[in-house]
């Protein structure tokens, strides 16, 4: 039978496949079972209660060697001091350090050369490989699907379950194919692609599904760009996003620290090449977009599905048919202080954030710098650039991108999650309007009463220079 990439990864990780004595582990239809987890990434926010749960029951971490920790959410982007964001954050960070030491887990703390946002650090070290199952107590774990790995976010109770057993009880999700046909126009980025997809299917459009992205436009993307696309699968409600591994994937992985070496590499590549959806395999739903139709995207509302092209006027409530969408639009227009018909180019921004697990990689830094060098940050705009990891920061500095940013009036910060969610002191004030390369424009996400518009790194840099939203294609 023709099967999908998701089917293949699922089947390869069901525990009883190789043990005939465990009939209770997997159901007859193969839709529920105990899944083996290859890689477990952890950070300071969602792990302390899981470790405490283990300790309460005197359990240990089954596979510390499959588990990797970093500090990212609660840390300062101005100082390497662990107490820079106050005693509560410090306690959380120290708790992670103590727990990792106790259980023999590799930790990349603040100041470590491998430290970074968990979803930037993992791939750049080669920890994420095709066909793996990858989990983390963080919804943006979907990022790692870019490698053809089944990667999804879990809650803290599940983090504890993986610690103790290296498995999770799973129900099989439905499958959705999202095909982006043709080539992307000049100036259109992976961020625009995923925002356009979410705009098309809606903020909950893929709930209960695993998405596989394919089509010419997807195949042509670099690994960094594929990570941006898969990262925001959760913003469409999906459990995970997948892109089948290909030569781009293998080239990215070869030689990275934790990637297989020598004969192991050859065996791995042989296995990875089989990780594709068979011709004729069926999906529960199929969505197709034409790459040529995608324009630079800007969210106008308070969920990522409320998104328009940069030259499209702000919608009116009557533009929506569904009463629930209408109600959401009323609330969003009010919170965002927007008027239907308003042009985004008339909308002043006073903050710009470039970074996050969505857009904090080296290619994002390059794309933003290419715009930044064309001008100066507008008066009254605070613009910060936060590299996703120490490795990204070093690479950017080698390419002197930091100098471009600083000369243009941007602040160049230390790596971390930063203003994507503001668990440190990088928070906005009430009424601030921010062009942000992050992934969520929820009410108060970047600060109580603050207004977030999601855009690509190039669009964010253009907004910083213009002081309002601007079509990045005018800068190319």
């Amino acid at each position: 039978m023709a099967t999908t990439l998701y089917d293949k990864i699922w089947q390869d990780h069901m525990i009883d496949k190789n043990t005939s004595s465990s009939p209770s582990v997997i159901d007859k239809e193969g839709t529920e079972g105990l899944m083996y987890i290859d890689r477990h990434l952890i950070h300071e926010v969602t792990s302390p209660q899981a470790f405490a749960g283990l300790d309460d029951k005197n359990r240990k971490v089954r596979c510390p060697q499959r588990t990797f920790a970093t500090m990212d959410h609660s840390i300062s982007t101005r100082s390497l001091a662990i107490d820079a964001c106050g005693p509560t954050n410090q306690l959380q960070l120290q708790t992670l350090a103590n727990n990792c030491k106790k259980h023999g887990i590799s930790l990349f703390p603040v100041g470590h050369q491998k430290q970074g946002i968990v979803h930037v650090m993992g791939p750049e070290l080669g920890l994420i490989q095709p066909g793996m199952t990858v989990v983390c107590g963080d919804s943006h774990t979907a990022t790692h699907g870019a490698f053809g790995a089944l990667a999804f976010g879990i809650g803290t109770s599940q983090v504890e379950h993986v610690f103790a057993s290296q498995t999770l009880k799973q129900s099989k999700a439905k499958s959705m194919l999202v095909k982006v046909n043709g080539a992307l126009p000049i100036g259109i980025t992976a961020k625009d692609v995923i925002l356009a997809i979410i705009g098309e299917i809606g903020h909950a459009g893929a709930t209960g599904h695993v998405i596989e992205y394919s089509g010419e436009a997807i195949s042509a993307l670099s690994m960094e760009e594929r990570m941006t696309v898969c990262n925001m699968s959760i913003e469409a409600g999906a459990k995970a996003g997948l892109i089948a591994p290909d030569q781009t994937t293998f080239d990215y992985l070869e030689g990275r620290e934790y990637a297989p070496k020598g004969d192991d590499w050859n065996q791995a590549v042989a296995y990875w090449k089989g990780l594709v959806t068979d011709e004729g395999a069926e999906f529960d739903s199929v969505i197709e977009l034409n790459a040529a139709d995608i324009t630079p995207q800007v969210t106008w509302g308070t969920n990522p599905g409320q998104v328009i092209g940069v030259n499209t006027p702000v919608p009116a409530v009557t533009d929506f048919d569904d009463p629930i969408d209408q109600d959401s639009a009323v609330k969003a227009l009010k919170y965002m202080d927007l008027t239907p018909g308003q042009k985004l180019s008339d909308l002043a921004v006073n903050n710009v954030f470039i970074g996050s697990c969505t857009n904090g990689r080296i290619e994002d830094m390059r794309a933003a710098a290419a715009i930044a060098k064309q001008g100066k940050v507008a008066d009254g705009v605070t613009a910060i650039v936060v590299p996703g990891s120490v490795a990204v920061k070093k690479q950017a500095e080698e390419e002197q991108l930091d100098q471009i940013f600083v000369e243009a009036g941007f602040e160049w910060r230390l790596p971390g999650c930063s203003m994507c969610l503001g668990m440190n002191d990088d928070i906005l004030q009430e009424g601030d309007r921010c062009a942000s390369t992050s992934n969520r424009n929820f009410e108060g996400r970047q600060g109580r009463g603050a207004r977030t518009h999601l855009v690509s790194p190039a669009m964010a840099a253009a907004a910083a220079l213009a002081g309002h939203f601007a079509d990045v294609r005018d800068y190319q």
Partner: protein
Amino acid sequence: MTTQTSPAGIDVHTGTAAPLNQANVDTDQIIPKQFLTAVTRSGYGKHLFHDWRYLDQHEQVLNPEFSLNKPEHQGASILLVRENFGCGSSREHAPWSLDDYGFKVLIATSFADIFYGNCINNQLLPVQLESDQMDQLFALVEQDSTTQITVNLQQQTVTAGDLSFGFDIAEQHKNNLLKGLDAIGQTLELDAQITAFENSRPAWQQA
């Protein structure tokens, strides 16, 4: 409010409901990030819906317009919401805060996936009803806030006044809620199978 529980789980719950007539309520609204720096599981209830519930950042001034603050909805143990409730992050602090506030049952048109699983793992019962059924429940509670709603997990029914609806729930989730199972302890009984699986894989996959 009464809850009949089996030895460790939830079975039948009866209580009044607080209506939150809104779609796409995300985890940043349920429990904002500034409360995620704690290292314990308890004490999140007072911060539930912080930005909507309080007019100030220090939680001194209640917002009288917010549903949960209205006198008639004090003591509610059931939350009525609309579609895609709990969308956004994986933070388990969201169900922890709902539970700590006093909610035992959430009734919505739909839930976000990770949030739904987190509820199951915290003995918080998520009930999914059709949109028109939700309309009727909202209308009933709006008419009479003292309406007692009974949720019977064993029979998979929601009854209130003259209304009676059935709901779907996966068998494994139902069992976990009914029996309050130690999911980890259950899995650890399969240690031999997990080890056999690990040993069956090619060397390069054995981390």
